[in-house]
């Protein structure tokens, strides 16, 4: 709902603060402000406040409560029939705060609630347009938001009394750790599929109206692409093996599937390429297992342009450090060398042969064979200068 500072000013005898201050007042005490343009606020009225805040007057009444500014020409329609009984203790229990009786009374006054005190109990009725004050928790919310949630302290939980249960999670993660040890890469794919037993009434992508019944097709497609991109991320002789753990939805009911792109040789002949983790006894398997923890560095976006690979093999004298050869290659390769792997070596008559794979790629454009050819010629020249023989 769009409303300007001027629109609001009509309801107040005293001058309102700046539009920015009004925006903050709403943001931290009532509603999200979607946008401020000049002196116009775009207010996202919460669904439970539609009854009283769909009008200018309703929004102005809310502002008067938040800023504690008198409302001009107040006309009251009376009070809700719903009377909520709540104690100061209960309000503070819910919020975890230690507000005083005076603070609570002040909030209720600012909101124009009708309040009767009965011993320790506040008997509260909201002004009529408001339909959302029904239970003690509603009153606690009014107190919290009007006084400000910054006044609610951050309190740590006491130690837990029940036994920590993470066994099923740990079982699932133990399976993943085993696969990573065996050289498998975890991928995650879409749950929506072309065909399946469960069809959505309102699919987002009309070509994929179903839920997958197996991870097989997605994993097959992911493997095709992984083989294509492997030189960018894997050493030359590393086989490309993928796995996914994800929910599948066959007719007989959903389950958590583990699927690999090939069998795990170390697991023996009896184990196939997929497993139903919903029936596997993963709680026992994970009970005492601590999943491996990793830290990740900042994400480096990959290039969307094609890459070019070149291999180079050379003879060097025995005792030559691989790192020395690699730094000569890097010095002569320039910025487009994105990966360098040494993948083969053998020794013969006092000399060693090393083979390297080089991967070239630009973040900005498609490289040509010609320019990579020039780079390779520079590298060859740089290595020859050192007396190495290019094979």
């Amino acid at each position: 709902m769009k409303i300007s500072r001027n629109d609001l000013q009509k309801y107040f005898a005293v001058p309102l603060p700046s539009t920015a201050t009004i925006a903050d007042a709403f943001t931290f005490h009532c509603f999200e402000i979607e946008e401020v343009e000049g002196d116009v606020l775009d207010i996202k009225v919460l669904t439970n406040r539609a009854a009283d805040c769909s009008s200018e007057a309703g929004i102005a009444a809310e502002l008067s409560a938040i800023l504690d500014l008198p409302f001009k020409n107040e006309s009251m329609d009376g009070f809700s029939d719903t009377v909520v009984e709540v104690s100061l203790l209960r309000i503070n229990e819910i919020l975890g705060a230690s507000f005083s009786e005076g603070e609570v009374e002040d909030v209720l006054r600012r909101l124009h609630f009708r309040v009767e005190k009965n011993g320790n109990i506040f008997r509260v009725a909201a002004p009529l347009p408001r339909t959302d004050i029904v239970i003690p928790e509603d009153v606690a919310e009014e107190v919290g938001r009007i006084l400000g949630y910054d006044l609610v302290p951050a309190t740590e939980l006491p130690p837990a009394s029940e036994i920590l249960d993470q066994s099923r999670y740990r079982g699932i993660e133990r399976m993943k750790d085993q696969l990573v040890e065996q050289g498998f890469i975890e991928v995650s794919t879409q749950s929506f599929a072309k065909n399946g037993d469960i069809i959505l009434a309102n699919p987002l992508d009309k070509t994929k109206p179903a839920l997958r019944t197996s991870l097989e097709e997605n994993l097959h497609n992911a493997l095709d692409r992984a083989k294509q991109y492997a030189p960018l991320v894997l050493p030359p002789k590393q086989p490309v093996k993928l796995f996914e753990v994800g929910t599948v939805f066959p007719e007989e009911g959903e389950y958590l599937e583990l699927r690999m792109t090939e069998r795990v040789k170390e697991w023996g002949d009896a184990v196939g390429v997929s497993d139903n983790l919903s029936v596997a006894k993963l709680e026992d398997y994970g009970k005492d297992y601590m999943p491996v923890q990793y830290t990740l560095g900042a994400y480096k976006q990959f290039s969307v342009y094609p890459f070019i690979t070149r291999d180079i093999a050379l003879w060097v004298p025995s005792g030559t450090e691989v790192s020395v050869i690699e730094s000569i290659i890097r010095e002569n390769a320039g910025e487009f060398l994105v990966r360098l792997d040494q993948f083969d070596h053998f020794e013969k008559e006092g000399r060693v042969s090393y083979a390297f794979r080089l991967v070239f790629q630009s973040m900005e454009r498609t490289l040509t064979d010609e320019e990579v050819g020039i780079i390779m010629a520079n590298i060859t020249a740089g290595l020859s200068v050192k007396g190495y023989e290019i094979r």
Partner: protein
Amino acid sequence: MIQKGRLHPISIAIREIADIFAHMGFGIAYGPELEDDFHNFTGLNIPPNHPARGMQDTFWVKDQRDSVLRTHTTSVSVRELEKLAKSGGTSLRRIMPGKVFRNEATDSTHEAQFYQIDGFVVGPTGSVSLAHLKGTLTRFYREYLGADAKIRFRPSFFGFTEPSVEVDVWFQAPGKEGRWLEMSGGGMFHPNVIRDAGLNPKNIGGFAFGGGLERLLMVKYGIPDVRLFYSGDIRFVYGFDEKKLV
């Protein structure tokens, strides 16, 4: 020699988060992705025609009126509270990581399927408060994003909590200016949720929270596009320097 493979960044994040919450006594629970109406909506104090239903873009299953793709893992809270009611317990702490679905047009910041981490704590009435929610999330974000992280609450409305808050997190990415980011929602369980799960809201109560996981990772690691997560692309999985912690 064959090198080790790699975990997807979502798995790595869930492990880190599970570990932080384990130190605060939270177990982990799972539930179905294809949910019934009760566990996704009605049991969360969002009955038919309730305005909060309109806030979530739900995928419905054809010819099965009672089946939806869960729009939040809060559905698992209902299942866990039901179990607590059956067991006669009075206290429980759980986080629920899992895939959820929203029928929204996709772009670099919106996916129709994403991961959510929801959590809740219940205990005898008066023992769990909104201040505990603030303390729990403050500790979580500090341990996950860094010691400079801080949080603030803003009023909100979800139906299944009362009071309800949006949770903003102050985060400064390396080399960037710090800013407030809307990271999750939370509040105190509405008494109707406790009652509908078979517990007595006079005796038991607590807080709940939940937020998208990808957004947290996008902020922490500078990932530009949420669609990378479910692309099945190994270039994304290998887009990070990885260090094993022992």
